[in-house]
């Protein structure tokens, strides 16, 4: 578990284009020791997080990890069992959803099917007693922002999925909520549209300086959009950090596996010389690693190597391993190899193509930089 949960580091996106209201140092959203339970089932435990104004934070995890429950608890759609939630410094535990001033975007768009685009987007403004003339102007601006100007009179049914989600986004931001909550907003879209919307959402978030909390199970979305990622598993926080931190230095075995399917090679420290150590792998070969702190002989460790950092070919530097190619997937610019190191330990390597491909059944050499790996201890926690 990361140590910087309670004190988020300032991010570049924390400085918004528009001056933030009130105390700029006050987090936009703060969770303190949240626990959410349904009867005996604990959906979320010991969850503390503060989200800096103007930042883009993602809750990432597999389905059932509690990420959506947390998002819904800010919205007031789920009651917390203990702890407290503040939005803009105001405790909202007893504030009903319609007084929380949050923007919510759903996976299924949830545009009101019987209302026009204009009435959908104007809905939040209407309930904030915004004068009619201002409503028209703000709706127009919001539609321009999501690049659907002039669609006021259409019904949601006349729009494509991507367009509907843009309108849903416009509807959620038009009244300048304290925080924008996005619940898997891209999951219902097809692949092309998803990528386009990813860029679009990020652009709009930057332009408006709105604080965003994004929930997804898609690591690519999380890595490409977030200022910070909170990796969740089984109701608990596994790691919190920038996309680079969580990807390059996963705090737990779960994070290493969930983000990018890292190779996990269990073994024991055979010889140790300060931070340098030789690890005898369970698969039968041994590798050299550089640990952040000295290791002692006989310690059980797991060597975590990203497929991108495991190089196939005889010219590899650092560690040398050999294995038999089980499968080769040619992807044009790169190739993914599955290689058996012996004893049924299969590793994946994802390399840019330089020279001939290694084919199935071939025995190849492969290796990685002793500094290009992460070490986990016997409990699956990162040795740091």
């Amino acid at each position, binding site marked *: 578990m990361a140590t910087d949960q309670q004190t988020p580091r300032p991010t570049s996106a924390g400085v918004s284009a528009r001056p933030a209201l009130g105390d700029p140092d006050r987090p936009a959203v703060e969770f303190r020791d949240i626990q959410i339970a349904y009867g005996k089932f604990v959906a979320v435990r010991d969850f503390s997080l503060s989200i800096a104004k103007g930042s883009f934070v993602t809750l990432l995890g597999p389905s059932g990890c509690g990420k959506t429950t947390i998002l819904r608890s800010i*919205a007031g759609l789920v009651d917390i069992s203990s702890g407290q939630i503040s939005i803009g410094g105001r405790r909202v535990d007893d504030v009903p959803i319609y007084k929380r001033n949050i923007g919510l975007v*759903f996976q299924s768009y*949830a545009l009101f*099917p*019987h209302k026009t685009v204009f009435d959908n987007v104007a809905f939040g403004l209407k*309930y904030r007693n915004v004068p009619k003339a201002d409503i028209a102007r703000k709706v127009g601006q919001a539609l321009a922002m999501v690049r659907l100007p002039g669609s006021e009179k259409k*019904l949601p049914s006349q729009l494509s999925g991507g367009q509907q989600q843009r309108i849903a986004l416009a*509807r959620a931001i038009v009244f300048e909520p304290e925080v924008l909550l996005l619940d898997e907003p891209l999951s219902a879209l097809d692949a092309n549209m998803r990528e386009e919307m990813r860029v679009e959402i990020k652009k709009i978030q930057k332009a408006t300086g709105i604080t965003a909390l994004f929930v997804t199970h898609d690591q690519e979305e999380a890595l490409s959009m977030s200022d910070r990622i909170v990796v969740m598993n089984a109701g608990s926080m596994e790691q919190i950090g920038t996309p680079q931190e969580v990807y390059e230095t996963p705090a737990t075995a779960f994070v290493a596996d969930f983000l990018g399917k890292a190779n996990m090679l269990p073994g024991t420290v055979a010889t140790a010389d300060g931070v340098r150590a030789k690890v005898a792998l369970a698969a039968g070969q041994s590798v050299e690693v550089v640990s952040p702190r000295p290791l002692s002989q006989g310690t059980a460790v797991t060597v975590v190597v990203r497929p991108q950092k495991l190089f196939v070919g005889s010219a590899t530097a650092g560690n040398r391993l050999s294995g038999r190619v089980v499968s080769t997937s040619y992807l044009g610019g790169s190739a993914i190899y599955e290689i058996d190191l012996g004893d049924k330990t299969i590793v994946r390597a994802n390399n840019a193509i330089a020279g001939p491909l290694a084919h199935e059944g071939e025995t190849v050499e492969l290796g990685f930089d002793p500094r290009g790996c992460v070490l986990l201890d016997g409990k699956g926690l990162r040795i740091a």
Partner: protein
Amino acid sequence: MTARSGDKEGRWAWRMTGFITVCVYVFMFAPIIATVILSFNSSMFGGFPMTGFSLQWYVKLMGNEQVLAAFRTSLWIALVTAVVTTAVGVVTAFALVRFEFRGKQMLSTLVILPALVPETILGVGLLVLIKAVDQPRTLLILVLGHILLAVPYVVLIVQARMVGVRRVYEEAALSLGASRFSSFREITLPLLIPAVIAGALLAFTISFDNTSASLFWRPAGVETMPTQILSMLKISISPEINALGTVMILVTVGIPLVGGIILQSLTRLRRRGEPKEETQ
């Protein structure tokens, strides 16, 4: 079926099915058609053969104060029943679908129970009850009785539709600042409209048609259309009854039919607006 039409046995079975179907339909509709046709018969007797075409029975009907009074009574009772039942039904269905509470299962069974209990039992039951609390049989009791009979159907119809109106619409409305009541009025209710109309029409028809329970509950001297017809039948099968029957058919079939058409066009309008259901 066409694939099998070649073999003999299949063709025979197909013909048999067709024959039985026709028989069933004749059996179902012959009495209705006979009533309608005979209402235009000029003969004094309310049966075949036809002796000529005439509207005299309708004219006579229009002049029959008793019939007109019964018609008015039935119309009012049905209207009040439809309005009250729909309101009660929508609220009940909303509670049963959207909220979790203790005894919910029992309540939802209890609500539809009046539809399962024989009407005669209900009729006697309500009578015994009002006798027990020493109340006279009034028009109010009759209306309440009809509401009791119609509520289960309205609840069932609205409940079925309610399940299809995804909660996410209400959640969206709430998140945008609408109170629970506003989100119900602005989002849920408009999306339920097809079911609300269907429920109201059904409640109207149930009340307008009801005979057996009305016989128990009606105050002295008050006749509804069905009880009026019954008492007229006691004297003779006059052709006037055929005319009256035709009017009844027009009202009880025509109103739901018109409603159904409205309903369908409304549903079509809504359907287009709904994205595909997502399962998480």
